[in-house]
């Protein structure tokens, strides 16, 4: 069936990069399935409105659940979008062997992920309801929680990206930055999907 060849033992960085890119895309596929499931949960419970408890009316003990504006979630998507563009700026720097552009882009992209994370946590803390107050409130925290988880992961990745850029580790190849760009794109899309869902109350 086969014959032996004399392939070099070590692989070209582009081959490794291509494989790693596919791996990240496949993991994103799993994350997409989860994000779409969250949208399904949101619209299913909204559509069912079981016992009129999607947005419960006020009782003697508990105030009425007032939905939040979807603008907060949209701001998260916009911040993510800026982060994505900045990472792209860094990627262009890496391709052009411009170390200053690479480092600057990676640093500000990291800063955007931290700003997004802090803002998302602030939104969750200042929501005018608790997660016990009906199906909408539960779903709101689920979507916000996914955003926060994504942003925390992005902050970790972006910090590593910036540090590696700073140390000059992308001088010979830049597939790490390209892969991180794929993640940023999904992060932005995911935040936008969350904002889209929350615009239906």
């Amino acid at each position, binding site marked *: *069936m086969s014959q032996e060849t004399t392939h070099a033992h070590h692989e070209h960085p582009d081959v490794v990069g291509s494989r790693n890119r*596919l791996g990240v895309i496949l993991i994103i596929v799993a994350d997409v399935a989860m994000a779409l499931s969250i949208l399904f949960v949101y619209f299913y419970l909204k559509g069912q409105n079981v016992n009129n408890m999607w947005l419960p009316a006020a009782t003697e003990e508990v105030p009425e659940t007032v939905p939040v504006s979807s603008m907060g979630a949209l701001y998260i998507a916009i911040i993510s979008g800026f982060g994505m563009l900045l990472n792209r700026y860094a990627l262009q720097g890496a391709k052009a062997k411009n170390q200053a552009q690479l480092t600057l882009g990676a640093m500000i992209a990291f800063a955007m992920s931290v700003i997004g994370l802090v803002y998302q946590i602030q939104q969750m803390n200042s929501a005018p309801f608790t997660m*016990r107050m009906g199906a909408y409130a539960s779903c709101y925290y689920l979507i916000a929680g996914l955003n926060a988880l994504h942003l925390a992961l992005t902050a970790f990745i972006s910090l590593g990206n910036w*540090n590696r850029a700073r140390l000059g580790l992308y001088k010979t190849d830049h597939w790490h930055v390209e892969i991180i760009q794929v993640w940023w794109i999904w992060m932005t899309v995911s935040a936008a999907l969350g904002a889209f869902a929350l615009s239906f109350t």
Partner: protein
Amino acid sequence: MTTTMGRTASAGHSAKSPLIEKLNVFTAFGLGIILAVVFYVLAAKLIPEDTDAMLIHTKHDQIILLAMIGWFIGFMVGIGALIGPFRWLLGKDLSHDENMFYAGKDLGTKRYFRYTTDHKVVGIQYLVTTMIIFGVGGILAMLIRTNLGNPEGGWIHPQAYNAIVGIHGIIMIVGTIIMITGPFGNFVMPIMIGARDMAFPRLNALSFWLIVAAIPPILSSFFLGGIMTGWTAYEPLASESPAGMDGYIMFICIFAISTMVAGANITATVVRMRARGMTWNRTPIFIYGVVASVALALPAFPVFFLSQIMSAFDRAMGTTFYNPAGGGSGWLYENLFWLMGHPEVYVILLPAIGALMEMAPVFTRRPLFSFNVAVMGIAGICGLSALVWAHHMYMSGWAPLLNGPFMLTTELISIPTGMLFLVLVGTLWRGRLWLTVPMASIYALLWNFMVGGITGIYLSDVPADGALHGTMFVTAHFHYTLMGAGLTGAIASLSYWFPKMTGRMLDRRLSWVSFWMVQIGFNVAFMGMFLVGLAGQPRRVEAYNAMFNRGNMVTTAGAYVIMTGMLILLFAVVDSWRNGIKASDNPWFAKTLEWSVPTPVPLENFATLPVVTTDAYGYGKAKS
């Protein structure tokens, strides 16, 4: 079982990275237990007490879940899973020597107890872990069957019986999911495609150790009130169950992460790392079975993961995803669960059938009958399996108008399944049969899967399901598919690849005795179960009407025969591994690449990578 190479640079990396060398399974368990206790104590002190005004009391579940999260974090830190990511973050990538250390170079048996990245070590780790999981699940099965030996049940408390049924169910499902892709997908698959390792060796080790980390939470549920819901953990029943459900939730969440990681890794490996010349038409059919399985699992398990995260939130945070009093819905859970639950059946079956289709040409000395039909059958099953989930919900009252369409899609899936039968029968037809245990397993699969498949058609039929749902008929049906077909394929795989994995032949006489005992016992046990199910005996009950006694006695007797057969197989595996006849490099005279490398397999599999020039089934021209 792999050879090791000279450790020329060990002094260097010892000085640089002592932490990597210190971490192993013992530090993982140690740190896991310590963090679990710390989290438990802190949570008990810091979380405010539940008040009478709260509709749902959550503190106990918060404490249990936090302790389990502590266990998980401690275990993963203790095994060394976080070293790679943090070294990447710091810009201090692992050196070649450190990567070789991770691959288990020169570590001997110690590498089986570490975060070892060599795919062959991971394969062996999966094999042993799967056997332990089946051992635990099997003991629970025998407890169930022994209790059902008489109509009054009685010697197991009903609550304990419920817990045993629930844990048996979920642990066996997980065992069957990993039983082929874990051991053989890891050990054999990269060699079979002509690769030196998996695409992401550290993720490979991660997927295995996540499963180890998941086992203590599920076993802890025995001591936390058990799993009272059966393996499906339907809501809102699960939210009202004791804290044992927290063990289930944690188990599923960790396992789902493992499955996602493994799915991405295996798919990337096959897509990107096949040997030069291995076109898709020359790729062995077993690879298709494995890739189809993980490709199905990749989008399916995140849905299951989410369903359990929401269960955890309902229990511990008071959210109302599934609680109708707060606007939630039990049907939501059922949808999310079965969106995973039915593709999961094929996640289990496809690698088993793929493995047997791989063996059929070897033991008939004929080409695989219609390779393209086999691929189309696998693809058809993958596509349709995502469109059948609601046949599990006919009687729940969810969307009655959709019953018809779901009945249709479910029955349509018999067509691609039939294509796989056709390929197997066509390959056997007029073949020069070499009657080995793997060969006999093909016949066993054809029979068992035919029974499981045809009874599945009855259950997919809405009127018939009205009478049969919730009975022992359903239990017998899915055991025929998952055990009769899936486990038969796994045991055949063990027998077939045992020589390559261990360097020894599996004891021929004992494996034949085991094969016949398991197959006869299995058919006796589950035919008896079909009969009592048809007569109306409900499932998940610890006592039953005396009219079902005879069928249950038959089933229990069959179960004891299976157990004896399995114990003989276990003895054969252990004894052959230690003292068996030494195997040649290619004892079956097969043509796939894994048989072209020496046994034991070198650390990097191939000294020089192969170039593939034909398919793996060139045993001569097929004669009709």
